[in-house]
């Protein structure tokens, strides 16, 4: 039972991080970035190819590399489309996603690339009759630190305040002097950092990465941002947590019927959206981006 709860918290934290990364970019750009999955994938690739340099250096390279790729996406594609409609942005993010998948295939190959990132995370800890996986504990701690850090950044710093304002009403924020390039750039960088954190947990659990590595969690995290309330950063984290925890609990309780996990998940998603169409924390001022 304790392991089930820890798994739910751990999955919830992981999906919360992924959803917050997507929610940050959506907040300031009104862009549903499907290519977030490829940020997670590059993070995982970088962990695997640099792990021989030692974990601290590998983390530094993976986080920096993922954040740089996120900024490159913004500068090379999305910045040029700021005046385009939401549909154009959506298709562009699909394009970036597919392009990067093929690019990873060329560079790293289509087959999974294996490697052990943090073997100590895969062990178990025993407390009397209770067995707990170390991975769950580490993921929960990592999620708490990162979500806490993001909360502090967003709530307590000037740049965080500007991101909140831009997420609410970008035109007015600009009239007050908020620099659009700065807040959008910051949102992409933090989105990349969060993607690298998700990559670390996933690649440690799976032990391998392939070009489609980040697709599944990105789709489910997107569902989380919608449930949480598009445009609300707290909503994104909460929605992502809810989706991750629900998947974990369904996997546990359905036992041999876990093949129906996603069926039940989406039934619950539809019910939540019918009851609260704007999401758990709706942003009433979801306005046009710049």
């Amino acid at each position, binding site marked *: 039972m304790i392991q089930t709860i820890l798994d739910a918290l751990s999955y919830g934290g992981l999906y919360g991080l992924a959803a917050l990364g997507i929610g940050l970019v959506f907040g300031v750009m009104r862009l549903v970035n499907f290519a977030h999955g490829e940020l997670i994938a590059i993070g995982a690739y970088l962990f695997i190819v640099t792990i021989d340099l030692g974990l601290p250096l590998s983390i530094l390279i993976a986080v920096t590399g993922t954040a740089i790729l996120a900024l490159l996406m913004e500068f090379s594609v999305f910045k040029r489309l700021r005046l385009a409609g939401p549909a154009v942005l959506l298709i562009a993010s699909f394009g970036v996603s597919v392009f990067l998948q093929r690019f990873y295939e060329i560079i790293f190959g289509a087959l999974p690339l294996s490697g052990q990132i943090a073997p100590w995370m895969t062990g178990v800890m025993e407390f009397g009759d209770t067995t707990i996986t170390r991975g769950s504990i580490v993921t929960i701690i990592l999620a708490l630190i990162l979500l806490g850090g993001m909360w502090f950044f967003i709530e307590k710093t000037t740049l965080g305040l*500007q991101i909140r304002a831009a997420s609410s009403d970008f035109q*007015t924020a600009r009239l*007050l002097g908020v620099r659009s390039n700065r807040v959008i750039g910051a949102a992409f960088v933090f989105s990349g950092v969060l993607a690298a954190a998700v990559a670390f947990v996933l690649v440690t659990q799976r032990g391998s990465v392939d070009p489609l590595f980040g697709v599944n969690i990105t789709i489910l995290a997107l569902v989380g941002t919608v449930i949480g309330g598009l445009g609300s950063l707290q909503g994104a984290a909460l929605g992502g947590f809810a989706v991750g925890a629900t998947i974990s609990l369904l996997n546990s309780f359905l036992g041999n019927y876990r093949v129906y996990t996603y069926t039940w998940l989406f039934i619950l998603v539809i019910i939540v959206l019918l009851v609260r169409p704007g999401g758990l924390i709706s942003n009433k001022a979801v306005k046009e981006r710049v």
Partner: protein
Amino acid sequence: MTLLSVRDLQAGYGKVQVLFNGHIDVEPGELVGIVGPNGAGKSTFLGTLAGSVRASSGSIEFDGASIKGRNPEDIVRLGLAMVPEGRAIFTDLTVNENLRLGLTGRREKSGAQQAVDEVMDLFPVLTTHKNHQAGLLSGGQQQQLAIARALVSEPKLLLLDEPSLGLSPTVIQDVFGVLARIQERGTAIIVVEQRAHLVMSIAVRTLVMREGHIRATLSQSDAQDEAKLAAAYFGTGEDRE
């Protein structure tokens, strides 16, 4: 030196032109009104000055520099601040956080606290509510917050778009009373309003807009001349420009 000088300004949205040959001169410390019916192009005119609407041609000289085509975030740092129609305060943020955002547009980062204190003197009610969510304020208080937020950047020119919108007559009098005090501090003001009498009573001159054109320039004394005002506002007589 003239603070703002605008000539032959054209602007619109996509292929639809909304503003034709916009022109205006504002001296330091002056209060100038712009009136006209719905759809006259008043807000587009202000938005073009503040940089939120792109001008297709014409010139905008502010404080000796051309600001046409510059970003809103640059223009506010030059000393031109705008209070948009509908107040546009951040309802999820506190009063204090809204004011902090206003400080973003300051040219000089020093003296920020003094600017906030001065604005709090002007709008004492905001001091009481400084830690409250802005969305919980009354309409009049929200309008005061929107003006205060623009003022903390210490602008040389303040643009106000329909400050009376949705306010009761008493609150409107309060808001317009504060405009005179802002003007006393040396800040020039352009007020866009549909209530012609209200703005003409405090403006040194008032431009009348219809269908995207400036059709007339009226003085304070013209406010008493209903026929002249109606002719300028509704176009029932000869245009004065």
